[in-house]
């Protein structure tokens, strides 16, 4: 019974959202607000149940002597809440600084070790064909050229078109032209995959309507 009622509610809400395709309308806006409300409430319930209760409140309540150091994150958390009002917002700066400091440090370490090191190392590929793997050599060449090219493209465009002259400038310009081609291919692939992802969502929704709700399939 609960499941039947739930299925009908879900189907109704699904149709309310789909009505946006015709035009923006009150049904869609209501559905949107219901979603935001439920997502918000749910995130808070989960944050309290899975993080704050077991990691902060319960240890402090059960054994404040051993867990006295948890008073610090408690204080920092309360200070953070002061960010809600403009007049007291500066109290929260310490907590935010703490978050940024730790997060920034991990971002440095992670970027260096996790991305840069491995990706640059893997770009140093054998370009000469070994025994019978000429195709692989070509692939490797394309990978190296493409990686360098797209980096040159970013250097050239994101950093502004610096007037680099001479051999270095010429190489950079050529690299950025080639890089643009590779970026275009990557963007095309990205779009195609994004379409694939959303299509799967649509298939899931329509399958739900036809199978779970209308029981046609």
């Amino acid at each position: 019974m609960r499941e039947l009622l739930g299925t009908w509610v879900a189907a109704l809400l699904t149709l309310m959202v789909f009505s946006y395709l015709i035009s923006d309308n009150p049904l869609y806006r209501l559905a949107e607000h219901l979603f935001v409300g439920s997502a918000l409430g749910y995130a808070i319930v989960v944050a309290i149940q899975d993080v704050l209760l077991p990691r902060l409140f319960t240890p402090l309540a059960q054994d404040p002597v051993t867990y006295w150091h948890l008073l610090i994150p408690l204080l920092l958390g309360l200070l953070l809440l002061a960010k809600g009002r403009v007049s007291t917002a500066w109290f929260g700066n310490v907590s935010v600084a703490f978050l940024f400091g730790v997060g920034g440090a991990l971002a440095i370490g992670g970027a260096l070790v996790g991305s840069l090191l491995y990706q640059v190392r893997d770009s140093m590929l054998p370009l000469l064909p070994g025994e019978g793997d000429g195709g692989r050599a070509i692939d490797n060449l394309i990978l190296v050229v493409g990686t360098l090219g797209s980096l040159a493209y970013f250097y050239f465009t994101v950093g502004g078109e610096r007037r680099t002259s001479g051999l270095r400038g010429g190489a950079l310009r050529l690299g950025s032209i080639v890089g643009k081609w590779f970026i275009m291919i990557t963007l095309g692939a990205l779009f195609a995959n994004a379409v694939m992802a959303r299509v799967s969502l649509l298939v899931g929704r329509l399958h739900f309507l036809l199978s779970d709700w209308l029981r046609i399939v």
Partner: protein
Amino acid sequence: MKRVLPTAIAMATGFLVLLDFFFDNLYLNALGVTLINWVVIIAACALILGFLNVLAFHLRKIIQRQEGWLYSIALLVMAGTVLLGGLINLQGYRAPLVKAIFDYVQTPLQATIFSLLVFYMASAGYRAFRARNLETFLLVGACLVVLVGQAPLARYIWEQLPALKDWVLGVPATAGARGIVIGVALGSLATGVRLLVGFDRPYSE
């Protein structure tokens, strides 16, 4: 003091965690774990702060009878229902009401809202994906190869299409994506360093 203290905290904690990241030392590890544990707790408080902000925004809308205030009521009622539902028997998100709202309200709504985009992508495909020059030709070409190649019926259109799709994804697209990944990593590195030396202070207004 107002400005110095947060900067000092950001630099000190960042430096300690960075050392812990690269070096394996008992005391550093213990300190690092403690700091990280605290950040997890404070991050959960940040979620609550976000919730309070949204609450204040919508309450103001309702009190001032701004445009769409009725929807704000619906939003707050729904959020309140989930929160109160979690308090029943202190079951949290395993409470039947919260589970039901998650399964029959939140999940279908989020999935449907996100799936709407495919319609606009389809119509954008007709209007915007025009091969005007070499670059856009590469864009459209790669898009078509991957799009059709990913379709499970691809091999009935052209036998080599799945292999071509794999090649496009695995070689040129990977090369471009790798450039992006390296670029993003360099950016993160730069931003992190600027934070740690106190050059950037996003935490003080």
